[in-house]
């Protein structure tokens, strides 16, 4: 790596650009956090002030109790945690089986699964998915959302686990087979503990996706406001009331939603970024 001369015009210009982007990137998050402590009348005034003139902790009490955000936060956790556990269980089993065994239909299944990564779903298949949930009788509980999340094929996750396991030698598997260990036993006792690093990464990605999602919980909770997740609940507050009425509460809700995921990101930064890039850097 070459040495860098810090006091050259290109480098100074680079830092000016980087600092500008730093401000722009951080601003909306900082704005939400400080805004969540403002009394609502400070918003009505407008202006350029970011810090509250008067710090109002009651915003959080009101959001938590009156705006029902306690319920919404609980709902979000209730959805996100089982989603992470079951998704990891299902995709790690699939990744293990695909990477370790040759069985009839293996290649066909793999190609089909990977092809789904390129299907345009979005809002197109939302309605039939909701009908499936209704058919199963789970469209009126949070488990409907969880079931859709954990059974929606996440081909990218399977692919990442396969990539990880292909780097682990099969000797231990074979030794365990000789000792009379079953396929599931090998998965449970040997593969799962070895795959912890990649599972941690994928768990973070799954948690982020479930915690942040808007589209699916929006549809599943249309008839059931008490089931709203935090993301849906905060936005519903704007859509049901006069927008100016409760900016402070909405920003409190926003902050409640942002803080956990940002704290997790700050702690596990490396895992997060590694997970995102793991699939793309194949040597």
């Amino acid at each position, binding site marked *: 790596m070459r040495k860098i001369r810090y006091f050259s015009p290109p480098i100074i210009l680079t830092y000016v650009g980087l600092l500008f982007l730093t401000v722009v990137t951080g601003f909306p998050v900082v704005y939400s956090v400080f805004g969540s402590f403002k009394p609502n009348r400070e918003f009505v005034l407008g202006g350029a002030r970011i810090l509250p003139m008067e710090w109002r902790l009651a915003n959080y009490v009101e959001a938590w109790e009156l705006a029902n955000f306690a319920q919404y936060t609980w709902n979000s956790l209730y959805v996100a945690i089982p989603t992470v556990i079951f998704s990891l269980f299902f995709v790690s089993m*699939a990744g293990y089986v695909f990477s370790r065994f040759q069985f009839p239909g293996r290649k066909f299944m793999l190609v089909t699964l990977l092809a789904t990564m390129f299907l345009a779903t979005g809002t*197109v298949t939302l*309605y039939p998915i909701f009908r499936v949930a209704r058919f199963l009788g789970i469209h009126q509980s949070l488990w409907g959302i969880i079931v859709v999340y954990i059974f929606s094929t996440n081909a990218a996750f399977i692919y990442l686990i396969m990539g990880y396991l292909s780097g682990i030698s099969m000797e231990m598997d074979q030794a365990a087979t000789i000792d009379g260990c079953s396929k599931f036993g090998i998965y449970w006792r040997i593969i799962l503990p070895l795959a912890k690093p990649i599972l941690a990464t994928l768990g973070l990605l799954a948690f982020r996706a479930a915690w942040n999602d808007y589209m699916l919980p929006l549809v599943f909770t249309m008839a059931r406001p008490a089931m709203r997740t935090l993301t849906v609940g905060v936005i519903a507050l704007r859509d049901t009331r006069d927008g100016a009425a409760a900016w402070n509460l909405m920003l409190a809700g926003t902050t409640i939603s942002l803080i956990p995921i940002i704290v997790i990101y700050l702690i596990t930064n490396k895992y997060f970024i590694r997970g995102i890039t793991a699939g793309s850097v194949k*040597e």
Partner: protein
Amino acid sequence: MKKTSLVYKIYKHRVAYLMLSPVIVGFFVFTLYPQVWVLSLSFFRYDGFRPPTWHGLQNFVRLFQRDPLWWRSVWNTFYFSFGKLAIELPLALILAVVLNRNLFGRNFFRGLFFLPHVTSTAIMALVFYFIYSPYQGILNGILGSLGIIEEPIDWLGTGGIAMISTMLVSVWQNFGINMVLFLAGLQAIPDDLFESAEIDGANSAQRFWYITIPALGRMLQVIVMLAIIGSLKSFDLFRVLTGGGPGTDTMVLMLYIFNYFFDRGALGSGATVPQFGYASALGVVASVIIGIVTGAYLWWSRRLGDNQR
């Protein structure tokens, strides 16, 4: 039983199939079935209550001949995607090249620029809705106090400006993830490639154009492809930030389809009876459009893909 027969092989791997079953069942129930449902319903009239009635190609005829708002949405979606990617991808690539050097504080910048990607698109769309607000919003507050503007600008309520405001939110959220992906690609390029080019007298622009871009090769191709598909499928951002407005200025494919399925009031057409058949036809055509764009892109960028790394 013969040890080579198919039945025996399947029997031998019964535990493997069992362990795959959640993923297989999930694929059939929540991926394949919904796709097939939408495809077949696109040939029917269906209001969700009475049984579907055969409608032939009428849904598609209507879509192609009598639905200007649909084609407006198609145009808006393209305009949004290419407009914002024209800012986002060069920005991400330049940042990746800059932060691939041994600059002081580069880990801080990398970590911070990636931060918007971990936040919820819908939640941040709400925050930007506040920031952009014409009278109470802090953006007009700051620009006004700096003397840059005299009259408040209605960032989301003015035709022509609303789409650009929306693009900027999307750039804000996505430049960091693309930067991280580009960085991963750059780190795989051997240093001596650059050094020999430097010895041969190539300047930094030439090195970027003739070495960095081709050497990124297939990774660059895939990153751009994912970015294109992702922006064509944008939904949360538009639903929360603009709702498709003002008028139909920011109506996009996925929001238009969503409204037909779930939010008829937002269609503004006075449609009171659900039209799931027509909504399905929209979905089918949207999938085909996205497929064609992806295919065309892959063909256009095929030379990048040749360079497998």
